[in-house]
């Protein structure tokens, strides 16, 4: 058990006062932003990125991972108490959770969400520690054509599978790829899309893009539609569960975990599909299906576990392949690049301490989150009363600070505003944000791998399709792209407007990313 020894080693590194402090800061911030409307883990990590360039990468990553996991916990609190899910992954939680809260069972709903998240997070992290090294072993042997194919698969997945509309997903992806293209071509030194602007020669920093799209775009979008009346918050006591609730919760927790982890680990997975699957399964398996829709605890326990397990699953491709499958992971990858670490299969070989300390910190952070969320839920709920003008003014304030700090040039602030307007337009027209951000981060890498493949084959296009992995990826991409045509031929999916031809309810898919 080599991994096991590594993991123990990681625990040894994480249990230093400084690392524990950063884990605590991370989970605290994470829970807070999960609870707060308008801010999510991806935006928070983006805002904190410039600040953390002065920190040790390990400590900053520990903090980011804490924010990532913490956001999942905090999100369920808003779903249950407000019926307005902050993250798309907690949309399903709101269905039964808010009904439970209205029936006076908010305490039990919060408890099953928090404990279920803990169980799923712990099992998920354990699976991460077991699976990730195997994926790395496999990934080390992959060459440029395979990577190119995997990245194309990630593009296709993010834009065609997750969103509500394929065409809108592709539009967002292409905008992201175009932004990623700006700057000097790394191979030939030619300037592209800079139009003679010196500040654009180095490209637009990923921090500026992420902060612009997530933070400024979101703040502008909310500002244009600010709800003048605050939504009613259901008062809550300390979360607890009775014997009966435990009996009804533990199986959904485990089943939710089983749904969540694999979906999170897929290049086109995410948390929405497994939470929906978990909800449907629990409704089917329940001995009291009549309670569903009126506040069934299984409907909170399962999806909450699924969403935390998928968060753990997300880290598999992120750490093993350098492939982000959600917005927070995408920005954490950008952070790695910012520190000069190369994400990908070699990361574990070159930085084993970093990787294993990070994984160990997830166990620690998860435990902290349980302690932080169970007794303190009423205090977190108070955060919902923060005056909105201050909240969104604060987001703009931190966004400006972060974007300026990257390069110390006011030009970036104007870029930030422009990108904020793009972010606004995405939200206004229902274009998903995730494909854009993945396009910006993976686009240049994909181009590099594609060109490298063709270099190997001397410019012959056959160089792009080497190896079975590439074949499988291209087959899946073809399937993803052809699927709507199949739907058409069989006569389904017609007459509903092509705006809704993808899987899932629309709101959730577009929402994850903004978080």
């Amino acid at each position, binding site marked *: 058990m080599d991994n096991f020894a590594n993991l123990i080693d990681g625990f040894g590194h994480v249990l230093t006062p400084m690392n524990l402090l950063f884990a605590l800061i991370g989970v605290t911030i994470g829970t807070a932003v999960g609870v707060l*409307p308008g801010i999510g883990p991806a935006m928070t990590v983006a805002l904190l990125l*410039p600040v953390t360039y002065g*920190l040790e990468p390990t400590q900053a990553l520990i903090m980011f991972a804490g924010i990532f996991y913490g956001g999942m916990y905090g999100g369920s609190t808003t779903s249950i108490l407000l019926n*307005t*899910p902050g993250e798309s992954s907690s949309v*399903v939680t*709101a269905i039964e959770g808010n009904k439970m809260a209205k029936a006076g069972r908010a305490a039990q709903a919060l408890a099953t969400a928090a404990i279920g998240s803990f169980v799923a997070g712990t099992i998920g992290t354990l699976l991460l520690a077991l699976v990730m090294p195997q994926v790395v072993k496999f990934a080390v042997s992959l060459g440029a054509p395979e990577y190119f194919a995997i990245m194309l698969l990630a593009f296709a997945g993010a834009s065609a599978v997750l969103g*509500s*509309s394929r*065409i809108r997903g*592709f539009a967002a992806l*292409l*905008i992201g*790829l*175009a932004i990623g*293209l700006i700057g000097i071509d790394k*191979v*030939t030194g*030619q300037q592209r899309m800079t139009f003679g602007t010196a500040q654009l020669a180095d490209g637009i920093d990923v921090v500026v893009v992420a902060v612009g799209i997530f933070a400024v775009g979101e703040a*502008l979008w909310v*500002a*244009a*539609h*600010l709800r003048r*009346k605050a939504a*009613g918050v259901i008062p809550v006591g300390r979360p607890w569960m009775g014997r009966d609730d435990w009996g009804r919760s533990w199986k959904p927790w485990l089943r939710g975990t089983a749904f969540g982890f694999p979906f999170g680990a897929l290049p086109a997975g995410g948390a*929405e*599909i497994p939470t*929906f*699957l978990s*909800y*449907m399964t629990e409704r089917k398996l329940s001995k009291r299906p009549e309670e569903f829709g009126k506040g069934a605890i299984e409907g909170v326990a399962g999806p909450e576990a699924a969403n935390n397990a998928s968060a753990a699953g997300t880290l598999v491709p992120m750490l093993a392949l350098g492939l982000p499958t959600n917005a927070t992971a995408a920005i954490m990858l950008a952070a790695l690049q910012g520190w000069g670490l190369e994400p990908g299969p070699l990361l574990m070989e070159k930085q084993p301490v970093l990787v294993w300390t990070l994984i160990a910190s997830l166990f620690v952070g998860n435990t902290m989150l349980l302690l932080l969320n169970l007794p303190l839920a009423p205090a977190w709920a108070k955060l919902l009363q923060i005056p909105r*003008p201050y909240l969104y*003014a*604060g987001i*703009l*304030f931190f966004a*400006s*600070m972060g974007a300026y700090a*990257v390069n110390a040039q006011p030009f970036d*602030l*104007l870029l930030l*505003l422009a990108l904020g307007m793009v972010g606004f337009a995405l939200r*206004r*027209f*229902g274009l998903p944000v995730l494909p854009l951000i993945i396009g910006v981060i993976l686009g240049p890498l994909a181009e590099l791998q*594609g*060109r490298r493949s*063709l*270099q190997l084959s001397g410019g012959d296009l056959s160089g792009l399709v080497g190896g079975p992995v590439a074949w499988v990826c291209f087959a899946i991409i073809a399937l993803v792209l052809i699927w709507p045509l199949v*739907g058409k031929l069989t006569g389904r999916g017609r007459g*509903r407007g092509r*705006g*809704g031809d993808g*899987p*899932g309810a*629309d*709101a*959730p898919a577009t*929402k994850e990313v903004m978080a």
Partner: protein
Amino acid sequence: MSDHTPDPTRDAPAGAVTSTGGTSAVMSDGVAAQGRGDRAQYGMCAFLAVLGGLLLFDAARIGHATSSNDPVGPRPVPIILGILLLVTAVLYAVDVYRGGVGSAEEGEDVDLSTGSDWKTLGLLAAFFVLNAVLIEPLGWVISGTILFAGSAFALGNRHHVRGLLFGLGLALATFYAFAIGLDVNLPAGVLQGIL
């Protein structure tokens, strides 16, 4: 709560059914109520087309720079992207013409029952640009304070003194914590030597 609060009991499970089937989503959500034929969407199509045109225009300018090392060169990728953007713009426009609507994003604080509040947006953008102009001459502490208080004002805060005090507190705290504590680039401006 407004009429457009999402009612997940109604919508989400329906979406779930279709998501497992993977065919089509039910657009019964309140958000889609921006109405069929949301013509503003053509603006987005135009933006995509312009972006695609820019890519092609710029790619045409780049010289041929291929070598045995790099048989592809810097041109093909922007050309491919430009073409894809133009194609997407057309397909998107066709979708809009057929009545396709992208559902605007919801959120805890978002009330989609009213149109966009352009006055607030304009004020926010103005304070944002003001910060970009003032940050170097006056320094982050002053420009940040103005940015915070101004944005809060634009968003409906009418406690002006409180807004300024919060802004000043945040600006000072971030300046000392990040610029002095963590060596983050934030200018001191006119307060150089005082802070």
